[in-house]
């Protein structure tokens, strides 16, 4: 579904991603793990077209993403959440979700300013969809609350909720459970499985919480210093000596935190 061909990204001489090739199959949960600074988020930002690769290409369903603009990516069926929660913080939870549906709504300015029936209808449908997503995340009672007033864990949920509003084919989740408590993590774990099993969404996941990664992933790629050092099923990756070496210390830090 999503294929990287020898992707290389350099920032002023620093190589963030080096000749990375990946093939993400449809309908799976695919995780990218690796120590901080391994280039994981850079990969996401290339898919979102915020960065342009120095060399190599990314293909989505056979289509080269090189000439797609950032705001057009979602129309191809790729949506994402952000590592540091990039929400519209002064907007309500409901409005954040509705904005997630932006690319699917018509935007004729004349019919909007006259509030024609067609606009009322699509707006009501959008609201219904948002209510479903709120229900799915258990956020219904916060629908009218400003996002910035919510605890961090809920904000992350809204971020992910916004990304699934458009029924994407592929969703990119950048550290979805960072900063969440254990109960919230558990809930999100179920949710990620639901995305795959019930909604048929392919999930590309970056995460440091190894228990989550091992539980949900179908396939894992391990990166370090911009390069792929291992890949395979969760069991294979756990046994891989290169991975254990890269993670020594990293696992310890996680355990303390």
């Amino acid at each position, binding site marked *: 579904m999503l294929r990287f061909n020898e992707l290389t990204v350099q920032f002023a001489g620093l190589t963030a991603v080096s000749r990375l090739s990946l093939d993400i199959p449809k309908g799976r949960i695919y995780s990218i793990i690796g120590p901080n600074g391994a280039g994981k988020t850079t990969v996401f930002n290339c898919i979102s077209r915020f960065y342009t690769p120095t060399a190599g290409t990314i293909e989505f369903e056979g289509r080269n993403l090189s000439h797609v603009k950032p705001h057009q990516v979602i129309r191809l069926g790729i949506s994402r959440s*952000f590592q540091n929660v990039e929400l*519209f*913080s002064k907007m309500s939870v409901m409005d954040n979700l509705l*904005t997630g549906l932006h690319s699917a709504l018509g935007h004729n*300015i004349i019919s909007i300013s006259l509030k024609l029936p067609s606009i009322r209808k699509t707006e009501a449908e959008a609201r219904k969809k948002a209510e479903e997503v709120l229900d799915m995340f258990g956020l219904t009672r916060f629908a009218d609350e400003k996002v910035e007033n919510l605890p961090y864990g809920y904000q992350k949920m809204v971020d992910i909720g916004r990304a699934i509003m458009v029924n994407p084919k592929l969703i990119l989740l950048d550290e979805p459970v960072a900063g969440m408590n254990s*109960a919230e993590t558990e809930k999100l774990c179920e949710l990620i499985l639901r995305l795959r099993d019930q909604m048929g969404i392919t999930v590309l996941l970056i995460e440091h919480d190894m228990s989550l990664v091992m539980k949900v992933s179908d396939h894992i790629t391990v990166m370090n210093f911009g390069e792929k050092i291992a890949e395979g099923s969760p069991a294979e990756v756990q046994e891989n000596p290169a991975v254990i070496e890269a993670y020594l210390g990293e696992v310890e830090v996680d355990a303390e935190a």
Partner: protein
Amino acid sequence: MKDRILNRRTAIVLFAIFLVAYPFLVGQSSYFMGLVAMAAIFAIAAMSLNLLTGYGGQISVGQGGFLMLGTYTAAVLQVKLGMPIWVTIPAAGLVAGVVSLIIGLPAVRLKGHFLAVATLGFGLSIPEIALNWKSVTAGYSGLPMMRPDAVSSDLAFFYVILAVTMIVTWLLLNIANSRLGRAFLAIRDSEIAAAATGINVAGYKTIMFIIAAFFTGIGGGLYAYWIEYVSPNDFTIITSFFLLAMIVVGGRASIWGAIVGAILFTVIPHFADAYIGITNLVIGIAVILIILFRPSGLISIGELFRKSDMNREIEAEPLRSEQANPSEVPDAKV
């Protein structure tokens, strides 16, 4: 929730009835009708600016320039070409819109202070052009205007201004509360996330500029017909700053807030004019106090009660979820 909407609707209807009855409450005094007419014109400009600055986060220090573009477009079309009001007023909006597109296309690539300085330049240059392009604008002496016969009295034209203001308010409310308004807010809060949700950031900034300029231009056109005279001193850079002050005091990202600000800033000079120089002092103090104590503007005062209720619920919430799932804690961090 329902009660609040009903209350608001009642308040709006009462306010509209008051405005319609207003000329008779003040004995059709031209001065007092003029106060409300100017408040309405400023309200149109402030609402438009609020869409751009309050919703979209794009600071414009040149909105007075679009008001002036509107006044001169209406005046020149009427005086030199003899066009009727139903052509000149929309044309005032269109000319302002087209000019905003020309300056907007490069300007939307600027951010924050740079955008403010660019629009400041625009706001400064329009009165200069009006002053020096003598063949069209008649320079310093200005252009005298004539209202159409059907609405030539102050009373009749007062209602024209009122009607247009109400229509513009309705249109801007629709835009602000739509997917378009959400996209503007989204751009203000996070351009990256906005792009990721499919919003063409540069394109929408341009649209904001055009909408804001279009309606402000219409406000300018109304002004030309109300005063029946346009001159290069009507809307200077001070007007642009006043418009910004109106939306800050009234409430950013709120159409009603812009109206509150416009009314306040038209009424303050009325009461303060007796003491020379006090107007600007009062306005300056008002802006500082609002920024310090109610950064969301006067319009947010009604939200105080609702907010405290909501906060209490959120504070109680995380506790409940942790208590509900004690068994899941041990195996979460393996």
